[in-house]
Structure formats: C-alpha cells, structure tokens
C-alpha cells in the first residue's frame, strides 16, 4: 500500500499535525540509537491521546500495514528501526505524568515520559524510580518497558520488569489490555512480565504504572585499581561472596579509563589494568559499615589503590567517567559499536582476554565497560564506517563476543534488546523449537504480524543462512571477506 493511501486513512482519524508525510519530516525517524541501520518509514504518526493510538492501530490492522512504535529513539539494538512499508508511531507527545501517589509509592505516566522526569517529579516526596539506563535523561518509559531496560543499579534494585506494576495498552486489533496491578499480584498468566521486554511486538503501551522507592539518604563510592583484569574479576566475586549486595558494582578496563579521563577528569588511575567502582547506599551508619567491609574485601583481592568518595560532588565525579564512556568512545573513534552480552561473573577475566585476542584478529580496538555485579558486559568496538570493510569487521567482532557469552552460559543481550541488531545471534542462543515458541507468542497477540515485524525473532531462512556462514567458535573460514 502506498504512503498516500495510508496517510489519507490516518488523516481521517487523526488531526492534521499528527501525521508526517514529507521526506524531511520523516528523515529524523530513520534510525534509533543504532545508527548503522537506517530506513525511512512511509509515514510517521504522532498521536497525543490513547484513543488516537487506538485509531492508528485499527487503521494499520485494517490496511495490513506494519507498525513500529518508538519512544525517544535512544535504543541501541534497532528496536525502533522503521519499516519501509510501514507507519512509525512516535509516543513523544504522550509525555504527561498522570499522577503520583506518594503514600502508595506509585506513579502513573504516559509512555513518552523520559525516565529521569519520573524521579525528578517524585523527588519532592523523597522517592524515585530506580532503573537508570545511561540515557535516562532522554529515554522514555515506554521504550524502557519495550526493552526491559536496566542501568547501573540493577543488582540491588532490579530491572524495568521489577519496577513496573502495571501497563495499559492496545493490541493491533485495537483491543484494550490492562496487565498487572497496583496490588501485589493479579490473577491469570503473568502477561505483564511477558510484555516487558517484548520490543513492541505484542502490543502498544499507552500508560505505565511504576513503583517508586525511597531515596537512600546516603551513598558513597569506592574506587579500586587492579593490576590485571583477572584480579578485578575475582574481586567482584569476592564482594558478592562476602554477602554484600552493593548498590552498583562496575568495572572499566584501561582502554575505557584512558578514553574518558582526558575529557571528564574523573580521577581514574590510568596505571591500572582495570578499575572497579563499588557503590554503597543506605542510612549513614549502614554505609560506613558496608564501605569498610568493601574496602577490606578489595584489599584482600589485591587492589593496588583504593579511594572512597568523601563528598557527593566527588561521588558524582567518580561516576562521571563511567557515565560518559560511550561519548568518550565517540571522541577517540569516528564510530563505535556497543555490545551487551551477559555471562556468569566467574568468566569475566576469560572473556576480556578473548576480546583482547579478537582485537588483533579483527584489527579493531575495543574498550570494555562492564556492569560487573550483573555480569553484563558492554564492549565498545571502535571502527571507522568510512573505511571499507570496517563496519563488517566490527559487526562480526561483536557477534563473536556474544557467541562466546552464550557458550559460557550467558546471553546475547542483557539490557539493550535484540531488535534488528542481534537477529543472527538469536539463531545461536535458541533452538528452532525455542524460536518457534517465540513466534507462537507473537502470533497469539498479533496474528497478522504487523507490530514491529522483522525484529526479535529471526526467520528460519535467516538462521539457516547464518549457520552456513559461521563455523565452530564463530571463526569464519575467510574472515577477510566481506559477507554482506
């Protein structure tokens, strides 16, 4: 169906300014945070109300037109990459905080509300919304629900799935679904858990009820340097093994600290092969006790030096380097590609060594930042898209890291989602029968396959093709050949 016909149908149900058709209006929506994948949607719908969302769904369903939902477009796996024949539905205008109940500790918001705005609005009550993805200034709660987003405080406070109480939304057929509850449980299958992280394939969420928790009165950050990545990895296991659940437990390797230090001046020890950032939060007495214990464990694990933030300003300065790791990659390299594998923590050292070896083999640099407490690794592969073959090598480098994570009992994506980016790796992690189960779930919600088609679940043909390309351990027969 051509764009004109779709536009006509949508304009019959939406105000004029809610439908963008001109190319220059559609261009900003051609990609999300994964800029390597770009497609121009046929048109963009910008509804303001739930009823308008429903009308867009009904229209797409009637016309058999694919529909891709988008929050703020900060996603890193291409979950919001448009469909050339489809409608891109932006939730950006649905950005109201509908209510905050401080006694019940819940906020009800529209999907386009930025993550951090919820915490800002709840701050007056001493409350906040815990999941804090790096992009929290911009990323929307609707996108967080679609991706089951995490952040640096997941080990103690959980992911989106642990902090969303209920959602309201619509299926492609325009049927309203209320999932979850403000109560402690809801009858029937846990369709809320199924929806969270479903990458826009099952329904469009129009309202989200989130849990707010009390802001800990005190937080301090311990920064420790290690002479090699193995002892840093062992220190992570030792902290957890000592019965400590820190508020955050992050690792950065030397390439990452060297990249950020010149422009944020966080005070990182550049002589260290890796540093750990270990945060403790709670009451002041609790934090004093826990910090002492953390210091003790880290010293026993061979930390070369230790620093504890003495003030809130210093704590934020120590964090600034970690939070700016991705922008720093952009400063030292024309392009970068951020991976998101998760693995059992005990294998961290092994994976970092393997990545070092891959850097040589693919002739590309890679810096590593790591939610060490969760076993969630973010290797940042540095490349230059203008150099022929560079992106292809980066792509294969990334896939090889993910496949190693799967081999070691981990997963291809900890918090960024599959999107279009990791379709091939899905073929490695899941059997045909498991992928068929995902397809069956999709079909139960969206029989015609109109919501975000081509994402999350690879086709059988794609997996067969990828299987032919890979050989054992992700080593290609002729790695020098471009494969696209």
């Amino acid at each position, binding site marked *: 169906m051509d764009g004109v016909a779709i536009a006509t149908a949508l304009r019959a149900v939406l105000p004029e300014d809610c439908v963008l058709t001109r190319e220059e209006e559609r261009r900003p929506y051609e990609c999300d945070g994964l800029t390597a994948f770009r497609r121009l949607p046929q048109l963009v719908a910008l509804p303001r109300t739930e009823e308008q969302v429903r009308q867009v769904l009904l229209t797409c369903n009637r016309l058999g037109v694919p529909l891709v939902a988008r929050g703020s477009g900060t996603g890193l796996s291409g979950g919001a990459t448009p469909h050339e024949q489809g409608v891109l539905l932006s939730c950006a205008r649905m950005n109201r905080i509908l209510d905050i109940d401080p006694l019940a500790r819940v906020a009800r918001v529209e999907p386009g509300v930025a993550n951090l705005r919820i915490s800002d609005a709840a701050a007056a009550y001493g409350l906040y919304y815990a999941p804090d993805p790096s992009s929290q200034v911009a990323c929307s709660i609707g996108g967080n629900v679609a991706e089951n987003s995490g952040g640096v405080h997941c080990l103690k406070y959980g992911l989106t799935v642990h902090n969303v109480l209920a959602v309201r939304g619509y299926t492609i057929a325009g049927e309203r679904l209320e999932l979850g509850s403000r109560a402690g449980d809801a*009858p029937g299958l846990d369709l809320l858990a199924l929806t969270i992280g479903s990458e826009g394939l099952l329904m469009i969420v129009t309202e989200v009820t989130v849990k707010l928790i009390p802001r800990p009165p005190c937080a301090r950050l311990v920064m420790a340097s290690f002479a090699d990545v193995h002892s840093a990895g062992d220190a992570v296991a030792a902290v957890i093994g000592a019965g400590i659940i820190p508020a955050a437990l992050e690792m950065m390797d030397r390439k990452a600290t060297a990249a950020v230090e010149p422009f944020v001046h966080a005070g990182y020890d550049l002589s260290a092969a890796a540093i750990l950032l270990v945060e403790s939060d709670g009451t002041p007495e609790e934090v004093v006790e826990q910090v002492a214990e953390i210091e003790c464990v880290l010293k026993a694990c061979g930390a070369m030096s230790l620093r504890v933030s003495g003030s809130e300003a210093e704590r934020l300065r120590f964090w600034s380097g970690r939070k700016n790791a991705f922008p720093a990659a952009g400063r030292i390299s024309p392009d970068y590609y951020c991976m998101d594998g998760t693995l059992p923590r005990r294998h961290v050292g092994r994976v970092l060594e393997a990545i070092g070896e891959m850097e040589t083999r693919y002739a590309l640099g890679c810096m590593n930042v790591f939610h060490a407490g969760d076993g969630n690794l973010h290797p940042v592969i540095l490349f230059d898209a203008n150099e022929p073959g560079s992106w292809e090598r980066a792509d294969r480098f990334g896939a090889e890291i993910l496949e190693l994570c799967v081999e070691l009992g981990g997963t291809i994506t900890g918090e960024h989602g599959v999107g279009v980016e990791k379709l091939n790796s899905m073929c490695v992690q899941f059997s045909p029968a498991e992928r068929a189960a995902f397809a069956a779930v999709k079909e139960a919600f969206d029989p015609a396959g109109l919501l975000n088609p081509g994402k999350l679940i690879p086709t059988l043909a794609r997996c067969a093709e990828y299987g032919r390309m890979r050989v054992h351990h992700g080593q290609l027969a002729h790695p020098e050949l471009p494969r696209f």
Partner: protein
Amino acid sequence: MAASADDAILAELCERVRAAAQLRSPLRLRGSGSKDFYGEALAGAVLELAAWRGIVDYEPSELVVTARSGTPLAELEGALAERDQFLAFEPPAFGPATTLGGVIAAGLSGPRRMYAGAARDFVLGTRLLTGSGERLRFGGQVMKNVAGFDLSRLLCGSLGILGIITEVSLKVLPRPRAEATLRLELSAPAAVAAFNQWAAQPLPLSAAAWWQAQAWVRLSGAEPAVRTAREQLGGELVEASCAHEWWEALRHCRHRLFSQPDIWRLSVPATAPPLALPGEPLIDWGGAVRWYAASLDATAVRASAAAAGGTALCWRGSAPQGRFHPLAPSVAELHRRLKVRFDPAGIFNPGRLLPGV
C-alpha cells in the same frame, strides 16, 4: 544419581507426554501434591514429577541456583542456608515435600513479597517440556537477559497449563545480617497507614502484618540500619523464636485463621482502606493482602476487592463460579491463544488456572 538413570526419568516423562498428546488424554502434573487444594478443580491422570530432582548448579558468588523441578523446597533452602543465602520471596510450603516446580508453577510468595519481590522477580531461567514433547530452555543463569520474550516469568504462576517446568534458575540473596520484629498496638486502619508511611522511608522493612489489634513489623538488613529503625518505629521487640514462628506461620498459611474451612484472599493496593466485609481480616504484605476466614458471597467479595482496585481469590471452600478472580475477556482470550499454541492437545492441567483452558 547416574546420568543414565536421569536420562531415563526425563525420557519417560517425554514419552508420557507424547502418548497423552496423541490420545488427547489430560495429565495432572504433580510435584508433592501439597497444592492440590489451590486453584480450580484437578483433572486428568496424575503425572508424578518428584523423581526429576536435584540441584544442578549452585555457585554462591553468582547468586544463582539451578535445580530440577522435583527438588524438594526444603532441600534447596537447606543448601542455600549452608552458604548463608536464601530465597528472598519466601515461598510458602503447604507440606514437607513441597517441590520447587510447584513453588514456581503456583508463583506464590511469602511475607517479604512487597519488600524483596515476588517469585517471578527471582526467576532467571526455566526449562520446559511442551505438549509436543519438545524440551525448551528460556532465560538462563544470569541476572540480566532480554534475549527473546520472557517466557520464564510467564511460566511462573502458570499452574502448569503451558507445559511441564523441568528446571528453574533462581536469583538468591545473602541472608540479612540482622533481623528484628516489633509488635505495636494499632487498629487495622492505623496499621495500614503506618505500613505505607514507613515503606516510603528508607527503612529496612522486610514484612508488615496485622492481626487482632496488633501490628507486626520485621526489619532485616545491616545491623546499624536495623538498630536505627527499631528506635524510630518503637513498639515492643518480639523475642526471636516467637517472631520466627509468627512469620513462618504467616508464610506457610499455618496461622490459626487458616484452620477455618472457608478462606478468601484479597489482593489489593497496600493503601486500600478497610473493606466492607464481615469479620476482621488477617493483613499481610504491608496491607496488600487481606485474608478473610468466612463463607462469603463470591459476588460481593469480588465486587469489594474490585472497588478497592484488587482481586479476590477463593483460597479454600466452595466457589461455584471458580476460585480465581475472573479475567477481562480480552485477557482470557490471550490465555486461550497461548494455551493452544503451547499445548495443542490440551493435555496439561486443563482448567486448573482458567476454566476451559
């Protein structure tokens, strides 16, 4: 257990499932049978799952344990306790042989639920035997995993209608260093208000309940935090063994309220005002669960729960219209569609979660 014996158990299960699917002959999945009273009516030939047992992997520093579904809960909790860890959702056990599979299939959580999370919050991965006899694996042994739909959490609380959960990986946590239970003389509305006000402050709450003019509050965490909170909350410090007995009775539904033949469990927002139902409830989950031991009119009790923003479950006793709170038609339809895709022959626990599904 020898690998060959293991293989034989699983092979036999697969065989039973395939044979039942071929004949479209329903199977009633059974761990220890301790939850036979729970949910809608039982149907089908019993398929015993307790033999498929054992802890597969437990690495305390990873905070993850993986076990087969027939593993007795007591065995699992014993292994965790040896390493000073525990299941923070405090699953209830209604018999000494309660299995992990039953715990996850029922998806029930104990008094810590509102403060630490529910059963499904701790599920990291599952293995499933489907109606076509296929063995699938979802999730894994890591804290963060967004590859594919979250079928592991969908299975938690599914009462076996989508297939046989054969293995579960759970997040575990270190046992709190310090614990203290306080008892305060409070009316039900005052207790519920206090529970909510305290939960909005950085206090180490791990349970809050009320029964017959007394509020019980448990604090768990670092010693200094528990000490400071005790001073702030006041009340009477309950002796440790007495406190343990109180919370265990609440967790496993052994409190004397449960000796009554008819029990309703209302799940409501924690801030819900007292419900207009006869008798005084036992309140748990900081106000979010209200237990009533009375033969109540199902329509009235469901209306009362719904008006408060919650649902009512007939825990025990007669409920001609079904035990569970009715689902919205659009949600019930999704249940039917998922059921038919995972269990095309309709053999697993038919009707146990939802009549006809």
